[in-house]
């Protein structure tokens, strides 16, 4: 049985002017010990998804579908049970660690808190020292205040807290954003080592597909609140089936790759307004390989190879023309050609001129 199972999960925020569907019909399974990456840009719903898993969303938010943690429905949990599950079964490492720590309390107390609350240890001090050692910090750091630590060290403290009650699942939301390259490498190496040693499952959220491909077994790419592609990390990163995944993968170049030298790849336009979704495929206004039918037909996740799926008309068996992976990469709209970039968002995207597929 999978550790975590999402079935048709939808999250809708209620705001003054109406309802905003932030996550739409996401279904996913995560096995024990598996690392899953969720990629997408701001507003794609990836952080909302993470928050929904432990019911951390603001009250009044509507959650439809089911979230099963170890077979237990998270939505049906009583408050006491939910409290026990948070930290002990699953814990979250948020982005911007500096804001996650209480500035006027010592590091050690903060790491010990979930353990004391959950009564998981009789000797919190000893366990704190153990946890600090695991994340590569000396035991005397327990007496430090957050401001005495660097950003990377604070992120290590957050990881120590996440590990404190020996959870089976860690959700890491952009755990290394705002950290330097070398510190990022340190933190990622640490997470990798710890999840392997303790057999913990990981859900890691980021907009950097290259980092996720490095850390995770499997990748899910989100666009406009939905999963548009799922598959083994390296295959999604190197040979994406969905044009949006391809654009994300191309955004972070491989140093040394002559293709990306003096040729940064971007994606024109903006993500759609969740209150005003375009008809058909939500990605079609920005899609370099959109067909005429994309303005009316919305394709759901569809098998696209072994253990892979993508929500794109090009993976459908009956679609004429080249398979999507042979189509030109995302440099078509707006990367360099004058006049085609920075579409005016009022029109919801870009010119209708890109509705044809150039087969190679």
């Amino acid at each position: 049985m999978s550790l975590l199972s999402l079935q048709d999960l939808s999250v809708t925020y209620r705001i003054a002017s109406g309802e905003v569907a932030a996550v739409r019909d996401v279904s996913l399974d995560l096995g024990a010990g598996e690392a899953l990456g969720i990629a997408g840009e701001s507003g794609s719903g990836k952080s909302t998804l993470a928050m929904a898993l432990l019911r951390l969303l603001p009250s009044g938010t509507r959650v439809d579908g089911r979230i099963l943690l170890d077979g237990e429905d998270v939505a049906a949990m009583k408050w006491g049970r939910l409290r026990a599950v948070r930290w002990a079964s699953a814990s979250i490492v948020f982005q911007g660690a500096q804001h996650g720590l209480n500035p006027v309390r010592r590091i050690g107390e903060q790491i010990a808190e979930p353990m004391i609350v959950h009564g998981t240890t009789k000797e919190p001090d000893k366990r704190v020292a153990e946890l600090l050692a695991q994340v590569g910090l000396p035991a005397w750091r327990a007496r430090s205040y957050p401001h005495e630590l660097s950003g990377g060290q604070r992120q290590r403290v957050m990881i120590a807290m996440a590990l404190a009650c020996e959870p089976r699942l860690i959700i890491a939301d952009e755990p290394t954003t705002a950290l330097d390259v070398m510190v990022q490498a340190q933190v990622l190496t640490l997470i990798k080592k710890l999840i392997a040693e303790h057999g913990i499952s990981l859900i890691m959220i980021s907009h950097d597909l290259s980092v996720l491909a490095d850390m995770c077994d499997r990748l899910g790419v989100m666009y406009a609140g939905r999963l548009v592609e799922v598959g083994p990390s390296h295959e999604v990163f190197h040979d994406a089936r969905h044009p949006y995944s391809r654009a994300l993968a191309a955004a972070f170049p491989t140093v040394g790759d002559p293709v990306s030298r003096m040729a940064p790849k971007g994606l024109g336009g903006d993500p759609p307004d969740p209150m005003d979704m375009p008809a058909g495929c939500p990605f079609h206004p920005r899609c370099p390989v959109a067909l005429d039918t994309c303005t009316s037909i919305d394709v759901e996740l569809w098998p696209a190879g072994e253990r892979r799926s993508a929500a794109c008309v090009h993976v459908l068996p009956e679609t004429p023309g080249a398979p999507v992976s042979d189509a030109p990469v995302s440099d078509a709209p707006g990367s360099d050609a004058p006049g085609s970039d920075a579409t005016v968002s009022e029109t919801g995207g870009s010119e209708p001129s890109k509705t044809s597929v150039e087969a190679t």
Partner: protein
Amino acid sequence: MTEVLTKRKTLLEARDLHVQFASRGRKARAVDGVNLAVGEGEIVALVGESGCGKTTLARTLLGLERPTSGQVLYGGAGLDYGSRALKAYRREVQLVLQDPTGSLNPRHTVYEAVAEGPRIHGLANEEEIVRDALSRAGLRPPERFFLRYPHELSGGQRQRVVIAGALALAPRLLVADEPVASLDASVRGEILALLLRLREELGLSALVVTHDLGLAWNIADRVAVMYLGRIVESGPVEQVLTAPRHPYTQALLSVLPESPEPVVLTGEPPDPTRVPGGCRFHPRCQVLGVGRAAEVGVDGKCKGEPLAVLPAVPEPQVACHYAAATGS
């Protein structure tokens, strides 16, 4: 490409630049002897971790900080720190900051944001300048953006407004401090493509300060790697990033995703108030650490003999005893 670079005329230059601050009663040597040149129409990436002094160096080049010693030269002449001269200088050299949301006044429209520079400098044809700058920055048609407020724009569009604000003064050089670090992956490439296009269309030079080696690979002609106040390696991007010679550059490249053998340096970037003796990188150096420096007999030098400040030349340069001894 290298041949083309060597012929470029130098536009902005740092010559043996030192910038020191008092930090908790100690002296922080933020910039500790730097030679760096940006040629006309050249894009140079200045790469390093937080605290290495790259932002201080950029600010000093813009005349926002005064060097403790050494000189900033623009068009071959030393920078004049008189207020009138600085005002004129800032028409030529413009700054683009990391966070477009923070650099725009939320209560100013796009038009006002872009028109601010031309107004300060009393330029005629304000509207035409704003229209032209927005359009060059890729916000088209420009009139549709005039009355928008920053909160109505996406992150990428805001960064374009910031760049338009810089372009409004028709500068010859942009200093961009992490121009895409706070932007989404999909927007990143668009803004970088814009910088390349501006170079092509306007001959605009750029000094891009970043910790992102992929960015350097995407758009820069030359790269300078900075560590603890010094440039430790510099040269054409193709050479430095595909065959790095300094152990620090090698380590930075090795931790990029999907790299076969990551060399994760331990410890934090060191403290500019306590610059180690000898080679300033030696306490974290993996080449020294595994004994390769000792094999060629330079370990004593690494720990005890400081390295010379690298010259500002286009050819590849490296400040490393091991690289010098092995010719690697």
